């Protein structure tokens, strides 16, 4: 079990579109939302390793897995990699319940909890990524690439969860519409290579919301 004791506030405020220090009333709102989020969350992750049996440039097949990774972007992401870690992380169902509750209380709290939760699930992924890096300390790893980035289709979520045995290991499912539940959940692929991989920033080119991203609008980048 992992525990989150602090949420990266600067990041959460950035998700909410805030560019400077938050005003007093928002700061105290954030205090409440942060502590309620931390007690509602039951963060966990699970990952498995897979050998890459073939990377055609369009499709990556994994040895012993039904899951097939399709798309030019994921293929490029994994180019030069001999294997991949398949990761699923979640804050758990308690956060969905908290989101429902605060929506009935006050929508201002709801958007704040929502932003904090989005930040928190990334923090869980960071912890997982660290564990993966440590396990492959002699090797090199790529950054996280998730279904929905670029042309890596969301439709693979079902098989992805099957590969990680996510229903049993972390309690994550996918709806018929292809959405992960609990909603604050993430799946991601981390490539593993014998040689150093250029850790370029996650580019906007592969991002599905680049046309309307607030960070971009303001001349920034979400990975800064």
């Amino acid at each position: 079990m992992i525990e989150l004791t602090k949420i990266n506030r600067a990041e959460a405020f950035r998700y909410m579109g805030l560019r400077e220090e938050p005003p007093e009333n928002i700061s105290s709102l954030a205090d409440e939302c942060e502590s309620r989020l931390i007690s509602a969350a039951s963060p966990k992750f699970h990952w498995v390793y897979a050998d890459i049996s073939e990377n055609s440039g369009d499709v990556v097949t994994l040895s012993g897995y039904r899951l097939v990774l399709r798309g030019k972007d994921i293929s490029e992401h994994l180019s030069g990699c001999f294997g991949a870690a398949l990761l699923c992380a979640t804050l758990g169902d308690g956060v969905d319940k908290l989101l429902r509750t605060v929506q009935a209380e006050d929508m201002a709290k709801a958007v704040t909890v929502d932003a904090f939760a989005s930040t928190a699930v990334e923090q869980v992924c960071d912890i997982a990524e660290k564990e993966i890096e440590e396990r492959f300390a002699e090797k090199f790893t790529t950054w996280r690439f998730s279904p929905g980035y670029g042309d890596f289709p969301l439709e693979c979520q079902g098989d992805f969860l099957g590969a990680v045995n996510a229903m049993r290991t972390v309690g994550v499912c996918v709806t018929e519409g292809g959405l992960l539940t609990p909603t604050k959940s993430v799946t991601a692929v981390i490539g593993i290579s014998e040689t150093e991989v250029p850790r370029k920033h996650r580019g906007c080119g592969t991002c599905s919301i680049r046309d309307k991203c607030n960070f971009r609008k303001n001349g920034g980048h979400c990975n800064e």
Partner: protein
Amino acid sequence: MNKKEIFKKLLADNEFVFLDGAMGTMLQAKGMEAGGIPEMLNFDKPQWLKEIHGAYIEAGAQIVYTNTFGCNRYKMAETGKTPGEIIPEAVKIAKKAADGSALAALDVGPIGQLLEPTGSLAFEEAYDIFREQMIAGEKAGADLIVCETMTDLYELKAAVLAAKENTDLPIICTMTFEQNGRTFTGCAVSSMALTLEGLGVDAIGVNCSLGPKELEPVVAELSKWTHLPIVVKPNAGLPDPVTGEYNVTPEGFAESLCGLVKYGVKIVGGCCGTTPEFIKAAVGALKKMKHVPNVPEIISAVCSPAKTVVIDGPRIIGERINPTGKKRFKEALKSDDTDYILGQAIEQAKAGADLLDVNVGLPDIDEKAVMVKTVKAIQGITELPLQLDSTIPEVLEAALRVYNGKPIVNSVNGEEKSLETILPLVKKYGAAVVGLTLDEGGIPKTAEGRFAIAEKIMNRALSMGIPKENIFIDCLTLTASAEQEGVMETVKALARVKNELGLKTVLGVSNISFGLPNRELINANFLQMCLSHGLDLPIINPNVPAMTGAVRAYRLLANIDKNAAEFIEAYNAAPMTAIAPAAMSAPSSASEKECTPESLIAAVCGGLKGESGSITKELLKSHECMKIVDEMLIPALDKAGADFESGRIFLPQLILAAGAAQAAFEEIKKSMGGSKGVSKGKVVLATVKGDIHDIGKNIVKVLLENYGFEVIDLGRDVPYEDVLNAALDEEVKLVGLSALMTTTLKAMEDTIALVKSNKPECRIVVGGAVLTPEYALKIGADYYAKDAKATVDAAREVYGLEI
């Protein structure tokens, strides 16, 4: 012997009963790929399955699970085969392998989709999916049903009902717990035990997730809560993420299992990572041991999945969710305003209620439908167990069915008709019940008369198999102003029921003071009297500090609240509760402040809810309603909106401003007597079919409402036809649709097409993270809203209002 008797005999004849080990692990060892569909192997590799079942039986398994864990129509859809086709094959293979030397259990795992409210699968649909499996299993000759690896008590309840209502097979249920004693959805061990035992399953326990050693605290906890045979089917420890190998050996596994025998474990097997060697080792090790019968303490308790409330002293039942005598509540029921009811639930929970009574009875609504919707919605936002309150048996049954956990039924009484209709429901769904001490002759005047009815209700309930700890008696409060001599009769009856019958007591307190001045004083004193005579469940308004305080003080003084821990937490935690921002603090007195249009605008822009309400109240004395709306509230919201657009304030502040405007609107509504005079037009809002992220839509709703629009909120995952029907029925000019994901944009497009083809003049505004103005246009929307404010602008344009 029928199958239930066969299962009982198996338990009676053996010290321990052995299940098989993992199926998936064995199939992968034979070459199935990870994430593959094991159920198809019933056709493709029956020999594999025969070998696996055979190996487990040889190792000592007396029950083998069929290879049908995920064999439901949702998961099997992609195979082109139905559960009705696959299950007979799987059962046939297991039975053949068992050849009479073991029982074949129909294995039923989770559906693979989360249920509402987190997921999009409705309880009723889950029931239907399970029903198909259960019927096919029994027809194919399965000897029992096993529901395993469940993490959602609600889903498991659907499965158990499906099994019990459609088959005569015995049922084993095991859930998967984490080390903290909770399932992934937060279900506690106690709640599982209370709920499943109430529903009448035959054995319960735990499987998967952890190794036998780590499961010890979970099994220890379970033994405190159940009289049923306990099942343990742990993993072979934890898997290595790279090699996939588990870290516990067969010997270590067996040794740890032996350590669980003292908790009353009766049925054992293995889950992920275990093989026939593990079962063999377990059989060998347990052979030397004796089963230790589990004798749990008898406890009165009710629960939701996450919270078990033990009635070990007075517990507060909040009475506020009830339309009787409440104009605003009635209006909320009629206008389908679930948010208002949820607000009542949250307020009472914060004030200190332990349980909530839920009554939605109004003559001119569909009480059954509203009850089901309300119970589901309240359970979606609070952990407090509920007391389901209706005079109509069909409403109670519908509520009992969809309730997640063990509720209280309010109520049965001494009338023959009531006993005959209500008690069977209480028994079937494993609930607790309130028994009112009245019958065909009305409410007896004397304590003796009420005691006699209590005894009658108790005896009838006991004869139907409802245990004593689930019967709560209400000796009925009469109004002191009308029947002063009756007050002490209630108290006396209550004391006798408690002491002589040994039943828990419940009482609605507030009626005592009806028609008298200083009601709070009477109520608090009456409550004290009743508590000291043995009242367990006062039904009160927890928002009145004197009432909640009386119960808390009693718990402390009666030495129930050990070390005054609860009391101190409630009253010493002021700094904790004071973290609410200034914007949401209690209304400050407006009379000390200037009450001018300017100060109202400033209060709204600053997000000051309390001030905004109190200033409005003052202004209403000298200004017309519409003037306040049009000349103060709307301009204030416009200013906040403009500040938001220019980046001077950000989303939470905009919403705080909207909330402050809402407080002003509430005052205006009150002064207008609830008429809809402020409506600027109706807007239908929906998050499209397949999409469950509705926070964006809800933000839009808040803003629209505070600009004076009437919002018909259809919720999330809304079928196309529902959007159309709402648009037609309500004669709305604007429909707003939200979609978060690229995968649900198609649903948005189809919804637009349906609305436009049936009501071409209806305008449509769309929004959502992945939408672009170009795309919005392409799918036929009239407006693209980049944020909530833009939706308001669209609505104003459509309804011909100034922008």
